[in-house]
């Protein structure tokens, strides 16, 4: 077991708790950078997919895991990010500007949408964002002039000062672009967590009244959370557009919104790790299923809805037996080993809570 002797306040503030942790993450980053040299193009594509989902997941995690606002409409913001990027490129804006700008546009729109949504809590917010996600499909068709409607748009080759990135022929370059974005988004998330704004998010999540009594501006904090969350999701959406090679009104449906939400729950709400763990499950589930079908000798039989059915079952099991998701399990396992043989079963026990109504009569 490692014991942290804290000698300065920076000990709590800095990114890594100690040298070992730093070395572990450094090794992970080196591994990620070396990945294109270690695996083939197919699996590199899958790794890219994991990272893109993780970026989108980080966006939603900030809103749902950190601030407690459930959104079933984040596919709409993925779409907004993808389309803003492509339309800007279409207008001749270089990628190096259009890509971050797509994130900012999505963030601004998200903040504006948050204003009427501020008064909504829990399920009402979930339903409202769900409606937004459904409407996004229709709006894309209606604004065909810019979005190409049902025909869709085809992302051109990325050009950064003459350095070209073509998603199909140069998967390694595309992978590095995605990896860079993922690292930047993770850093943003981490920085927020260790500063007053991140704590304000958690305060709003856990108790709005006492957050207000402590001087946290509830409305402004929620809007900021929506803004940053949507911006990150928008970046994810822009990358998803490149990854799928084509975007139209059916690329980002309500099902994607739901999948994104389920993904962060499986990964573990409220943790950066959770977004990445969840993305692994989403990206590799189809692979895993086709392998499993091979075992049963039914690999040629297409079973519609199988992927979502299994995904749903995994989620049900997690909510029942490990509400903290894969990350929670990981932490518990790690602590069990660190404390071996002194770990106790009730170490993670929480006080029992009862449902209290929000209704007053």
């Amino acid at each position, binding site marked *: 077991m490692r014991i942290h002797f804290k000698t300065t306040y920076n000990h709590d503030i800095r990114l890594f708790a100690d040298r070992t942790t730093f070395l572990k993450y450094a090794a992970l980053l080196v591994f990620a950078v070396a990945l294109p040299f270690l695996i083939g193009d197919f699996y590199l594509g899958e790794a890219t997919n994991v990272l893109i989902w993780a970026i989108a997941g980080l966006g939603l995690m900030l809103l749902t895991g950190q601030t407690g606002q459930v959104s079933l409409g984040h596919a709409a913001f993925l779409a907004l990010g993808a389309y803003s990027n492509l339309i800007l490129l279409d207008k001749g804006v270089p990628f190096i500007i259009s890509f971050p700008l797509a994130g900012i546009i999505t963030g601004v729109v998200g903040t504006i949408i948050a204003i009427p949504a501020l008064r909504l809590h829990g399920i009402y917010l979930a339903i409202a964002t769900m409606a937004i996600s459904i409407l996004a499909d229709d709006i894309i068709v209606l604004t065909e002039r810019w979005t190409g409607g049902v025909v869709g748009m085809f992302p051109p080759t990325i050009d950064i000062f003459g350095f070209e990135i073509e998603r199909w022929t140069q998967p390694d370059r595309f992978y590095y672009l995605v990896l860079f974005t993922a690292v930047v988004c993770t850093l943003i998330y981490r*920085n927020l967590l*260790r500063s*007053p704004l991140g704590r304000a998010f958690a305060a709003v*999540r*856990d108790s709005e*009244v*006492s957050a207000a009594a402590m001087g946290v501006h509830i409305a402004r904090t929620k809007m900021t959370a929506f803004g940053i969350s949507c911006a990150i999701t928008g970046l994810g959406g822009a990358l998803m557009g490149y990854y799928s090679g084509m975007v139209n009104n059916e690329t980002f449906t309500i099902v994607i919104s739901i999948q994104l939400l389920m993904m962060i729950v499986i990964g573990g709400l*409220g943790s950066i790790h959770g977004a990445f763990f969840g993305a692994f499950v989403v990206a590799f589930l189809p692979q895993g299923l086709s392998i499993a079908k091979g075992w049963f000798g039914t690999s040629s039989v297409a079973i519609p809805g199988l992927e979502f059915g299994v995904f749903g079952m995994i989620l049900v099991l997690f909510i029942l037996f490990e509400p903290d998701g894969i990350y929670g399990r990981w932490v518990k396992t790690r602590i069990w080993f660190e404390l071996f043989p002194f770990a106790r079963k009730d170490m993670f026990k*929480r*006080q029992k809570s009862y449902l209290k109504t929000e209704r007053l009569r």
Partner: protein
Amino acid sequence: MSLLEIKNITLKFGGVTAVDNLSFSVEEGEVYAIVGPNGAGKSTVFNLISRFYDPVSGSIEFDGHNLLDHPPERIADFGIARTFQNIELFDNASVLQNLLVGRHRHRNTNMIQEILFTPKVRREEIAHREAVEEVIDFLDLQPYRDKLIAGLPYGIRKVVELARALASGPKLLLLDEPASGLSVEETQDLRWWIDDIRKQMGITVLMVEHDMGLVSSVCDRVLALADGAKLAEGTPAEVQANPAVIEAYLGVGAA
């Protein structure tokens, strides 16, 4: 002038008058208690000061500000911190994080600076942590610093909530039933703490409390409420001897 001055305040829920033309003032440096039977409107007075409710009429002045001109989240900026009757902590955060939220009113950095985690953010962060450590030291919360609230026993949570309020560095501390649910020893600790809060930190305390033992040992003045209106005001001994108070507590004819 008094630190907190409440004048002729009236609050109605539908047809029910919860607070009825109530006036009182709290002087700087004193410990002032509001007592009264259940439903007398004690917590409601706190919620009025916190601006969770809008009164029908009356005024609330604090330190030269008319609180009724400001939204709830501005109240902390004037130097008012509070605890809640049913503990409203941030359950999925650690004790340290809870206390740091208490420092929120001292935040001087903006979103962009925090995203980039500039040196200024770091300096402020260290300053917040120094302030919080003093409170942790004062209330003996060291063993719980990095524990999640969700796993803490009731008594500790009460102390954490007091600590969070203190961390904000208030001029006025509102304590809503600080001793309810505490053991005899814990109540004893609370008594010393309230004494120290007043004497060492120079913080004025306004509290709602049922435990008359605690009230008479730490409070300078007491206000007795019944049905939202003032019944009596004075030193603890005076109020306890007041026939109207005895009647409200024990029923008609008991005196």
